[in-house]
């Protein structure tokens, strides 16, 4: 496995993160002076090179036997204080390799796409700087060998997300959305930090390997500490991966440029929570309670977000809610013990959701910025390639065989049925139905039916340039083929990832994946889920193609419910009323009453009291000499009297 230089590519893992960093620095410092094309090349090359290194790393890793596929490289001590050590080091194992491949692979395509998409923008270099910085942070997140370093990446991607959502900072809604994203993420990070603290206090280290090795010996299954750690970590995951109750930032995040939505808010960053849960699967399996919580939250989010997606009219918002819903699926899988299934869905989802977002971006680009689906329609003939790729993506997410989404989603449902209960399966199945419906609703409203575009828009609607179409095609291919990674009988990904799960030889009730499931059950489940998807598609077809008046009728009949869903269950408003406003009001009270009136009032009162006393005392200072003389004499007499009386 050594090449002629005597080192493996595993040793060069640092380059995976170094290239994006270099890209960031070059574009950040020199970008203003460089031409747009150079900036674009630098940005793409950084990620492309990183992807190539990642590929070689994968190859090197495959040469090792499955049990030894863990490689750690430590660079320097980042923070060292007393017994606490945080070492900056990278860890390569199957899980992180899968992640870096997804991040750099999909990331590369989106970079390429961005060249075309953002070409008109004045701050082209700034965009690529941020994008490279994001990739850098994301890679640190997945490659980190300890919790604290992971937290750097974790917050780093949050920062980039903030910067990129607010990329068009002159738009008030964009900058507000960026801020919201960061702050909601911070709420999650609150849990993450506490989890890290608790982990250190419990295990005396924050290194992944050591923690996971020590965990089964230190903690009982179902112990409170394990539950607390995992729940706190999950709070972080909930924030980052936009689950109930912290999902509200993600739909707003669609204010950012579309490629950003595709990369950060669909394919990579938002799935970091899933990655983290899978990474810590050893801990999670120690706490059945947390697992249930994860599953319930995941399932509930899947259903809840899907229901909102049904009625949204903004093309990107539909996709955003679908992202939330799909990540809910992943958590559902993880919560039921199917960590690998979760990762598998993460990968396929990265392909098809990036594809869908990029496709929608292509549509938006073609329409000159229009995002409202009610003003689209019949785009099939104007943008054929976009249409085809988008159709593939839709089929994939709806779960039609043999597209990628089918396999992963089906496995999750299977997992839910075998390991969970009918309840979880029901959640998943209904969500799947809704997904198929709203995705095809989106497809039909956008590409089929009559054109509802305004004249001006219709005149210059066009197919997108090659730099946009190329990534679409590649991703479409991946969406078709990606599922075979986890094809039930081949199950490449299962075998590859198996060592990561339950590392430390802990007896895993959930670790074995679906091998023991009888093939009968498996195929019948496949049939059912396909059936569900088809039902959804048919309903969508009926409502939006054959009888377009139907949605209006239904909306009218169930006006109350419709309004609630259309307004996203008023969750934003509820949060505003329960958290934001009271906090601000309390702050105002603290400032204007406690600070100014009470504390400062007290201080000023002391001052005023002194002045007041002086006001009284100064009356004795008449300025009349004879008064002073009188006082002197009086004082003298008093002294004499005293001396007579007391001496």
């Amino acid at each position: 496995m050594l090449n002629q230089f005597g080192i493996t590519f595993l040793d060069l893992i640092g380059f995976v993160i170094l290239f994006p960093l270099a890209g960031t620095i070059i574009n950040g410092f020199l970008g203003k002076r460089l031409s747009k094309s150079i900036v674009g090349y630098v940005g793409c090359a950084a990620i492309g090179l990183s992807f190539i290194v990642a590929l070689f790393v994968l190859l090197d890793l495959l040469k090792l036997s499955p049990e030894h596929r863990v490689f750690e490289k430590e660079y320097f001590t980042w923070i060292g204080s007393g017994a606490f050590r945080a070492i900056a080091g990278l860890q390569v194992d199957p899980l992180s390799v899968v992640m870096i491949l997804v991040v750099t692979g999909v990331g590369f395509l989106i970079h390429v796409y961005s060249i075309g998409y953002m070409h008109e923008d004045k701050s082209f270099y700034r965009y690529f700087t941020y994008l490279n910085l994001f990739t850098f942070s994301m890679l640190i997140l997945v490659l980190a060998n300890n919790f604290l370093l992971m937290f750097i990446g974790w917050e780093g991607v949050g920062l980039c997300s903030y910067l990129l959502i607010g990329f068009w900072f002159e738009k008030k809604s964009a900058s507000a959305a960026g801020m919201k994203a960061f702050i909601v993420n911070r709420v999650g990070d609150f849990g993450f930090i506490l989890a890290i603290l608790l982990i250190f206090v419990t295990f005396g280290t924050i290194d992944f390997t050591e923690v996971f090795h020590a965990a089964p010996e230190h903690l009982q299954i179902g112990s409170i500490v394990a539950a607390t750690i995992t729940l706190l970590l999950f709070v972080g995951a909930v924030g980052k991966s936009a689950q109930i109750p912290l999902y509200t930032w993600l739909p707003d995040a669609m204010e950012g440029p579309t490629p950003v939505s595709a990369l950060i808010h669909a394919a990579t960053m938002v799935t970091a929570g899933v990655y983290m849960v899978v990474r810590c699967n050893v801990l999670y399996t120690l706490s059945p309670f947390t697992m249930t919580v994860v599953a319930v939250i995941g399932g509930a989010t899947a259903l809840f977000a899907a229901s909102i997606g049904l009625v949204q009219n903004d093309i990107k918002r539909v996709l955003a809610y679908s992202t939330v819903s799909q990540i809910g699926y992943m958590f559902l899988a993880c919560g039921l013990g199917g960590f690998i299934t979760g990762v598998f869905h993460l990968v396929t989802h990265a392909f098809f959701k990036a594809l869908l977002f990029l496709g929608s971006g292509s549509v938006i680009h073609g329409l000159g910025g229009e995002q409202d689906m009610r003003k689209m329609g019949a785009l099939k003939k104007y943008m054929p390639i976009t249409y085809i790729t988008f159709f593939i993506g839709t089929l994939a997410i709806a779960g039609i065989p043999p597209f990628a989404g089918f396999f992963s989603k089906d496995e999750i449902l299977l997992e839910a049925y075998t390991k969970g209960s009918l309840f979880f399966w029901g959640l998943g199945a209904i969500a799947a139905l809704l997904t198929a419906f709203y995705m095809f609703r989106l497809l039909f409203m956008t590409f089929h039916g009559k054109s509802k575009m305004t004249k001006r828009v219709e005149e210059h609607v066009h197919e997108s340039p090659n730099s946009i179409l190329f990534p679409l095609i590649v991703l479409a291919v991946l969406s078709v083929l990606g599922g075979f990674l986890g094809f039930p009988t081949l199950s490449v990904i299962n075998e590859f990832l198996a060592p990561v799960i339950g590392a430390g030889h802990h007896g895993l009730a959930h670790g074995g994946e679906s091998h023991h499931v009888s093939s009968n059950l498996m195929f019948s489940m496949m049939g059912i889920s396909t059936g569900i998807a088809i039902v959804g598609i048919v309903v969508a077809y009926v409502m939006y193609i054959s009888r377009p008046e139907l949605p209006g009728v239904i909306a009218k009949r169930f006006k109350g419910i419709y309004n609630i869903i259309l307004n996203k269950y008023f969750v934003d408003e509820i949060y505003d009323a329960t958290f934001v406003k009271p906090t601000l009001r309390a702050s105002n009270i603290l400032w204007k009453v406690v600070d100014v009136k009470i504390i400062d009032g007290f201080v000023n009162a002391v001052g005023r009291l002194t002045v007041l006393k002086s006001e009284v005392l100064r009356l004795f200072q008449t300025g009349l000499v004879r008064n002073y003389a009188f006082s002197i004499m009086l004082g003298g007499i008093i002294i004499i009297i005293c001396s007579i009386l007391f001496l």
Partner: protein
Amino acid sequence: MNCDCPILTIVTFLPLFGAIFLLFIKGEEQEKIKRIALAVAIIDFIISLPLFILFKSDTSEFQFVQSVPWIKEFGISYHVGIDGISLFLFLLTSFLSLICILASWNIKDRIKEYMIAMLVLQTGMLGVFISLDLFLFYMFWELMLIPMYLIIGVWGGPRRIYATIKFFVYTMAGSVLMLVAILFLYFMHYNETGEYTFDLLKIYNLDIPLGAQFWLFLAFFFAFAIKVPMFPFHTWLPDAHVEAPTAGSVILAGVLLKMGTYGFVRFSLPLFPYASHQFVPLITWLAVAGIIYGALVAMVQEDLKKLVAYSSVSHLGFVILGIFVFNIQGMEGGILQMINHGLSTGALFLIVGMLYERRHTRLIADYGGVTKKMPILAIFFMVMTLSSIGLPGLNGFVGEFLVLLGTFKSNVLIAVIATTGVILSACYMLWMFQRVMFNKITNPENSKLKDINRRELALLLPITILIFWIGIYPKPLLSRMDASVNHLLTQVDEKYKTTLSRLGKNEDVLLASESKREDYKTSEVRISESSQNPVKRLIKLWK
């Protein structure tokens, strides 16, 4: 290390000589005065740099020590030296003073007097951090008050008189109490050993009776708590910051506030270990209250400087928390956080000052869309904001995290509450940033803004580099602190335990204090060990 050349003394008094030299220059020669002041500050900073390199990190002894009897009759000596705790504050001071003089380039009014005040202030501040003699310490402590008073009172904003008197009286009230306590220690040392001395290292060895510890601690506490400022002694800070000129704010936030926290570490803890332990509940809760309170109040400020000032209250709450959890992570985090706060908040004040110079307003509502006109400033502003928020990879995080870690080890509940400060800091800083820098330019005044010039770049760039350095590779700093902090904690701990055993407390308490110390590996978390009601403890002490 006993260096032959008295490097500390040179660094400390060079600015004073510079100030004296400036006296002989005519006030009209503004350029010349500015250049000379700057040159003095630069030379001073350069001379102070070898301290960092020559500092030996493997010893907890004071280094670069110089001890000369000054007033023998009263046992006052010129005893200076630094250890891992004061080293960085010393360097930070010489660095920020340089920045401040450069930041004051545009002052037109009485530039000579201004620069003299600045340089004298620098000597005072540097002196505080190196003094190992209580008298010397107190002298420097008061010395730096006067130029600061003048800087706010003469070159300040419209309400400067109110602010400056408030600042002065607040601080004096505290430091007078401290003077009484110092004298008490002085006479107590005489009573016990028959030697009159103000020497800190000798007074460290005193065995102070518990009742006296209680009152002495309180006296020192007020002096330092006001200086920090801890909630609820903080109200002088926003006023002083708002009225102070830019450089004044920077110095105030960057160095002066650190004197309080430094005082806690250098004096309160080692001198009164028992009282310090007794006060832990009260102080930690006050610190946490400060964190949350400062953050909440900062959120609704309309004035940029006030916002940053209240954020200081919040940040210094972390520092205090770190100091009073009595473990190495907390303490090192606290010290690091002092430096971080000096850098990031100092830089924020600089930036606010730059905006103010251009627009002559500090109201957030008057800004908006500034990024469009000032992209370079926006980058620096962003970095400072993020550093202040505590983004991992920047300096703020390292300190904050270590403090939280230390706190978590001693009291989980407080750590949890303190962590919410992390959320809140993001809220107020980003909201402010959004309103100032983002959105469309609505105010036509803002469309005429010019981006920062070279001088301003020279101000912000070094700070930014330091911010990244501390964020990414804080080891050179932490390793230099290690020995001193360890020594301090062990010292405090031993004294505390001897006191306890003398009091005849049972083994449990001893064990509890043992468990707080370093190098323990328990499998279970010790959830907030017997956090007694602070009021009850007070009552008990009084009896």
